[in-house]
């Protein structure tokens, strides 16, 4: 290694240009994880940029898929960027083809919106705003809160519009959802007329379940209401059969389906299931296996996947490589997997 200093994650050391290139080349030749080979080293900004390029070159681009059939031809990357990711990830994620930003409204001001995103034409990517009058501690009947949040966060972030108005956390009871005749939908209709949002969605949380309507029942009510264009749902390796049935029904109704909590909820079970990891061609990579299970493994009666995309928390290059590699074209092809629309 050229140095006898122990290199651990607790004691990172810098890499010379020569060592860096040697590690990159050796990893490329062996087919190993680039981020794992570089973990524990203190990289310079240019080395980090080069490592990100090498990772993307290895895993390839993210495929896109139409997000349901109720929102025109909105085609989104199958892994979605989340506003609270490590900001360092935005450049590589955009380069990998991500074009949908979840929780875009939560950047506190225009300076906080990443420069990489601001440089892009607004029409080249999609956003959602998570509207909080339905969040815990708020009043789901508060029309003004819903309306004003959108106005205020549009002004704060500088986005010209949000593609999806997403009721955050969703509704706890069927009564508060009221077959779609609720304050959130009324606020949405006005905002849509004003050109500030385009489609109506929900980020329906499942818990704490004691205080919530049964998950599958709430989803069924939302499908039947006919007002929901896009659902973001807790979909993971731990989802129950009745929940999976409800997700498929929603997709059949044309609703765009985004998975959330895929790794947070599924990681523990997947980590203990070496057989399923191997089946998903992701042995030793529970995060990649969790995403493959949801995006490729969950198939409807027509044999096609019913989850359109998945939100992934990305804190570092290892998660970037492991998670995006679940469906990115080169990584999937190397594992003999077909990622179809």
């Amino acid at each position, binding site marked *: 290694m050229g140095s006898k200093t122990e290199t651990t*994650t*607790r004691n990172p050391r810098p890499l010379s240009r020569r060592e860096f290139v040697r590690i990159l080349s050796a990893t490329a030749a062996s087919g190993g994880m680039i981020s794992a080979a570089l*973990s524990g080293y203190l990289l310079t900004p240019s080395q980090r940029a080069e490592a990100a390029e090498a990772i993307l070159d290895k895993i390839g681009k993210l495929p896109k898929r139409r997000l349901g059939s109720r929102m025109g031809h909105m085609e989104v990357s199958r892994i979605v960027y989340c*506003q*609270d*990711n490590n*900001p360092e990830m935005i450049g590589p994620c955009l380069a990998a083809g991500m074009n949908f930003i979840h*929780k875009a409204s*939560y*950047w*506190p001001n225009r300076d*906080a919106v990443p420069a990489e995103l601001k440089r892009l034409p607004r029409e080249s990517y999609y956003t959602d705003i*998570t509207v*909080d009058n339905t*969040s*815990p*501690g*708020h009043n789901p009947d508060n029309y003004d809160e819903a309306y004003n949040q959108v106005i205020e966060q549009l002004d704060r972030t500088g986005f010209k519009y949000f593609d999806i108005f997403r009721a955050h*956390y969703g509704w706890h009871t069927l009564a508060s959802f009221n077959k779609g005749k609720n304050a959130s939908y009324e606020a949405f209709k006005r905002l849509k007329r004003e050109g500030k949002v385009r489609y109506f969605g929900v980020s329906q*949380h*499942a*818990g*704490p*379940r*004691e*205080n919530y309507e049964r998950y599958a029942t709430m989803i069924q009510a939302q499908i039947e209401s006919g007002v929901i264009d896009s659902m973001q749902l807790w979909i993971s390796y*731990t989802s*129950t059969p009745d929940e999976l049935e409800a997700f498929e029904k929603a997709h059949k109704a044309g609703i765009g389906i985004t998975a959330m*909590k895929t*790794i*947070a*909820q599924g*990681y*523990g079970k997947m980590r203990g299931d070496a057989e399923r990891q191997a089946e998903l061609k992701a042995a030793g990579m529970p995060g990649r296996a969790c995403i493959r299970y949801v995006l490729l493994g969950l198939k409807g009666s027509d044999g096609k996947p019913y989850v359109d995309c998945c939100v992934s*928390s990305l*804190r*570092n*290059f*290892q*998660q970037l490589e492991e998670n995006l590699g679940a469906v990115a074209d080169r990584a999937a092809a190397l594992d003999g997997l077909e990622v179809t629309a």
Partner: protein
Amino acid sequence: MTGNRPRLHWYPAPQDWAGFGLPLAHPDDVCVQTDWTVELALELLHEARRRHHAEFGEVLHWAHMLKALQGEDGLWPECIEGKTCHAVGGARTRTPERLFRTIRELMTTSEFDTVIARSKGEGESYGI
């Protein structure tokens, strides 16, 4: 548990519990200790910054669950029954505010602003 450095190890509450995924210190525990959860989460966030890898998604999940458990007084139960997410005893804590402030700073997000505003404190824990 408060005051001890938490081990970076926990048992997620079972799938059929209301507090699904929240951390338990021991596999046979039935209660989620709020202060310990916060300390564990903060430690994981610290590790995430230092080591560039951690179970970050789980911390965000805990934050989302704790957001839902904030009372009208702006505080949280000190002890939560994992199966039901009901408070055990009357002790209340403001400790989760520290977690929400840390996440706000770390992720440059306004997602938890209202939770922090409702807790109106400095993050100390106390019994009632």
